[in-house]
């Protein structure tokens, strides 16, 4: 039998210590009450408009805005586990930021022979425009989302692994905040019985981080959030964060460059902008440098940025470090830049561009998870054990045609958490995305966003693929 690890139940009869109070509470709740609360949550999410758009959905009507299913059973993390995880996250993000800085400056890590030059320099996410550009504090990824899973070991214990680093424009933090708000509204009594570490100050930490990178000469920096617009899948989050921080939510058309500064158009004329929290990908930021047909960015932005007259969060070119082909080198980066042993583990990874790895992968396709190096959102991946013969055959030919485009990892037995489904309460696989903020200091709120794969047995937690979310509790001692 495959090993499994459930966050709540250590075995059929034993509940893990940090879930005991909750489990007793849950046992007291009548089923009707829980389903009434579920409906209530859905009505509120709709009214508040906490929705996301689904790409590739041609239906222009109501259907393009979906709710992300919200599960009532929280994911609980005991204090000591969070302490280790937080230490590991800090360490990892610091090393990644050092790496990005290095890549665009002395390239010491390449010279030291730790990361192969072609992995960096021929990476599509490497931005030569950023070479020798100094960004404030040397911090590139101010907002990082690190995806973590817990996998079952053969002896029944579990180990946390970092599955992926998201250093460009990670999203989901608004759901973390809204889920907590919802839980406190639906079950206030639960919070009096547990010491749940608060997360509501995240927007404050974010604003603090953004202000800390403003160009030096500015006293009261003007911070804005740049969104691609209301049709973007994460628009709710962009609007939410701007509102929570009390800053303007701008689109590319609201910005313009004059005399090497960025301005926004207001009812009182032009107003200078100092820090842009951009939720627009690099490629669309400046039509003069990147995609010429992009209307989502602002012409001339890069030149202002390079002169240090505006700060961007995140910096341009961070993608070079969160690419799946760079991922295997992160533990070595931590040792190289910080002289420390990594606290958080990587999932063992096969690079298909290496001949012997490719051979192994092709021989074990039915056991492995194969991912596109640049893929995101659960698109373009093969989950071997869950795939049909046809799917595997099709994937095999794609893989042979372009091996450098893929990596493979063992299929981890992702931990499960009890979840409300049609048939009642059942275990479903989950992951965790903590958000790490790096400005003058590294800050984070306890926990993160827990995503849950609602289909039985499914390992894909992405909201675009039918995943849901849970509130995440870090219990204080």
């Amino acid at each position: 039998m495959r090993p499994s690890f459930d966050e709540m139940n250590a075995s059929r009869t034993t509940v893990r210590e940090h879930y005991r109070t909750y489990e007793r509470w849950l046992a007291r709740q009548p089923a009707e009450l829980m389903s009434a609360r579920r409906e209530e949550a859905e009505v509120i999410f709709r009214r508040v408009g906490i929705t996301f758009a689904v790409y590739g959905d041609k239906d222009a009507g109501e259907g393009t805005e979906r709710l992300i299913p919200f599960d009532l059973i929280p994911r609980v993390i005991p204090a000591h586990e969070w302490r280790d995880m937080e230490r590991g996250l800090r360490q990892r993000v610091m090393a990644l930021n050092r790496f990005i800085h290095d890549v665009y400056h002395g390239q010491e890590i390449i010279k030291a022979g730790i990361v192969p030059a072609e992995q960096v320099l021929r990476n599509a996410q490497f931005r030569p425009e950023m070479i020798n550009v100094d960004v404030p504090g040397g911090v590139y990824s101010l907002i990082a989302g690190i995806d973590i899973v817990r996998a079952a070991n053969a002896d029944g214990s579990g180990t946390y692994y970092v599955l992926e680093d998201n250093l460009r424009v990670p999203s989901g933090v608004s759901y973390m905040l809204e889920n907590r708000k919802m839980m406190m509204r639906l079950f206030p009594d639960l919070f009096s019985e547990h010491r749940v570490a608060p997360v509501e100050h995240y927007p404050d930490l974010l604003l603090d981080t953004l202000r800390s990178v403003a160009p030096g000469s500015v006293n009261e920096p003007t911070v804005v959030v740049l969104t691609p617009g209301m049709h973007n899948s994460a628009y709710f989050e962009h609007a939410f964060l701007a509102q929570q921080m009390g800053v303007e939510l701008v689109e590319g058309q609201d910005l313009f460059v004059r005399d090497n500064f960025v301005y926004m158009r207001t009812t009182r004329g032009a107003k200078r902008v100092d820090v842009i929290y951009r939720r627009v990908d690099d490629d669309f930021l400046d039509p003069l440098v990147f995609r010429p047909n992009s209307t989502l960015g602002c012409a001339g932005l890069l030149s202002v940025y390079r002169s240090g007259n505006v700060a961007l969060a995140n910096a341009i070119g961070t993608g070079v470090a969160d690419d799946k082909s760079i991922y295997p080198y992160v533990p070595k980066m931590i040792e190289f830049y910080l002289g420390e042993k990594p606290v958080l583990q990587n999932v063992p990874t096969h690079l298909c561009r290496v001949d012997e790895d490719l051979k192994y992968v092709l021989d074990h396709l039915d056991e492995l998870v194969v991912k596109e190096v640049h893929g995101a959102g659960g698109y373009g991946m093969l989950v071997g054990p869950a795939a049909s013969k046809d799917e595997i055959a099709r994937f095999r030919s794609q893989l042979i045609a372009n091996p450098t485009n893929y990596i493979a990892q063992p299929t981890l037995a992702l931990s499960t958490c009890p979840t409300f489904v049609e048939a009642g309460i059942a275990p479903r696989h989950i992951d965790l995305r903590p958000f790490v903020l790096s400005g003058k200091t590294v800050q984070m709120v306890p926990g993160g966003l827990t995503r849950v794969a609602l289909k039985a047995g499914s390992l894909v937690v992405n909201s675009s693929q039918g995943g849901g979310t849970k509130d995440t509790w870090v219990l204080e001692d």
Partner: protein
Amino acid sequence: MMLSRTADHLFWMARYMERAENTARMLDVNYQTSLLPQSAEAAEQGWRGLLSISELRFDYAKRYGAIDPRAVLDYMVRDERNPSSIASCLRAARENARAVRGTLTTEVWETTNQTWLEFSRVSSSSTLRRDPSAVFEWVKFRSHLSRGVSVGTMLQDEAFHFVRIGSFLERADNTARLLDVKFHSADGEYHGALQRRDSLEQDFYHWSSILRTVSAFEVYRKVYRNVIQPEKVAELLMLRPDMPRSLAACVNEVLLNLRMVANEQSGDTLRRAGRLQSELQYGRIDEILATGLHAYLTQFLDRIGDLGAGISRDFLVAVH
């Protein structure tokens, strides 16, 4: 100080909500009137007039052909191919609100969003057939709620003023159109006392329906303590500054809020709004009727359109 684009969305959010309400008002009165005993011709005339108010006669004819009360209701309430239908207006109000939801208070956003979410259920074809007035009532109350929530929760900053300008500019336009069509239908070009009096009774229903459209029937009685006379109806709905849907009241509000947001380039728009306001303030109904009501209202609508364009140019469109 706020983003021009944000001001634009707020302005249009308010306009569309106001337009939905006014459309509901006009449809309701027309529907109520159609229940009175009358000739088929008169009934058809009423529905045709309604389409004319929104300049939709040709579009309707293209899609549905002959005038049929049920089809007109469907077209004006639920048909999203009609950009002026209540459904289209509520969607547009909601889309504009969504684009700037961060600028709105939670209550304003949720009210607008909920109105849109519930509308398709409230206006189902069976309800619309069985009890159209219930649908119109609902739309009116949702609009009251939106307005109340804006006034009751929004900081009185620029955002608020642009919302108010949008509401009252739209209302001025709608009241003027209503008057124009209703007076026109009564008597070609209206110059005052009716030359052709079919019956006092028919007159009463005609003029009182206009009053009811803008919730002014009781107000009329209170102000004039007299039988319903067209001249007084026109005076009440055009020149009385204390009548909340009159042209004078609307232009007063537009001017007031425009002053609050004035910037370097808005001087001329403000001047034109001020001139319009003083003409209404010092105008007399007998003079207006002597020059012809239709001519006056056509000119008024042009000037309202002009003010909208000026506001757009001065505040809402990009400055380089």
